[in-house]
């Protein structure tokens, strides 16, 4: 456009100085007023972010550990957990005991809290059995029963002509539903 512009051939020192000064003033203004304070804040925030990230990662690892532990425990104790959740019903128990005894009858004695989170029912069982072996089998099968049941004293066995009448106490443990 301008073939006769000789401003680049003969640099005006004055202009150069003025422009240089203007450039430096603008640059320093930007640097000192905007960039440096922002970078300071940036660093502080970045450090804060990293700190929070590390903390979160630690907590996350702990969480994964707990989850693994929990699922392992759950897998190992499937029967126990479901047995505690399983609501105890007298009909079901009578049906189970019927496999070993003839004429089973249940009478609920007490219901109380046990160690805060469990409920303990006490029931009296009256039944007839042919041989004591049935009783052993019953006790053995109790550990695999759908609910947590403990056979307990007093145990009274009385033999009549053909069979044995047994009276004993069972304690059933359920999770306290109110918790």
């Amino acid at each position, binding site marked *: 456009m301008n073939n006769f512009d000789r401003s680049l051939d003969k640099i005006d020192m004055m202009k150069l100085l003025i422009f240089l000064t203007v*450039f430096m003033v603008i640059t320093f203004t930007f640097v000192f007023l905007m960039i440096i304070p*922002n970078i300071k804040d940036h660093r502080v925030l970045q450090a804060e*972010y990293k700190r929070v990230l590390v903390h979160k990662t630690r907590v996350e690892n702990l969480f994964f550990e707990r989850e693994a532990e929990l699922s392992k425990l759950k897998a190992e104790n499937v029967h126990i957990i479901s047995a505690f959740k399983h609501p105890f019903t007298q009909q079901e128990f009578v049906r189970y005991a019927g496999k070993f005894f003839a004429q089973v009858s249940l009478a609920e004695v007490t219901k109380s809290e046990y160690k805060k989170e469990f409920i303990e029912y006490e029931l009296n069982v009256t039944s007839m059995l042919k041989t004591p072996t049935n009783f052993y089998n019953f006790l053995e099968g109790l550990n695999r029963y759908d609910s947590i049941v403990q056979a307990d004293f007093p145990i*009274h066995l009385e033999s009549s002509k053909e069979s044995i009448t047994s009276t004993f106490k069972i304690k059933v443990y359920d999770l306290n539903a109110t918790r």
Partner: protein
Amino acid sequence: MRLSFIAPRPKPFLSLFSKMWVVFIVLMSLFMIIFNFYIVIEMSSFKSGVVDLTKERERLELKIDEDDELISLILRQKALSEEIFSNNTLLKESMKNLFDLVPDQITLQKVQMERNSLVIYGVTPTQDTFNFLLAAPLKSIFHTSNTTFYLTKEGWYNFVSINKIIGEDGIRE
């Protein structure tokens, strides 16, 4: 009247030199503004990141608490059920032991097992049979053992044997 041989040229308001400087300064300023803008954006992303991470951490901490609660509940259930299962097994074993103890000559009529005592009603052909075959092992298990005999019409003996353990453990041995 023309005094010059060349045609007058319009003098540019800014020379090439000045234009270059202006462009340079403007570019530098733009660059710095963009750089600053980038920092500001990153700062705000850090800020929101900190908030998000804190929320996430709090959520995880709550879940850890829940897991801890569940774990301890399962452990308590496990402890209780193990105690119950071993009690059932012990009860089975002690009953089995008791019935194994009774010799063929002696017939049991009634057994009353309590936590710390055992009362046996039965029939024995002679007192000695009972004393040698059943009373001796019972004495070794229980702290006190008392037996009363009644003569029956058939010449046998009805007996009542009361055995007690002094202490808390009961007869689950």
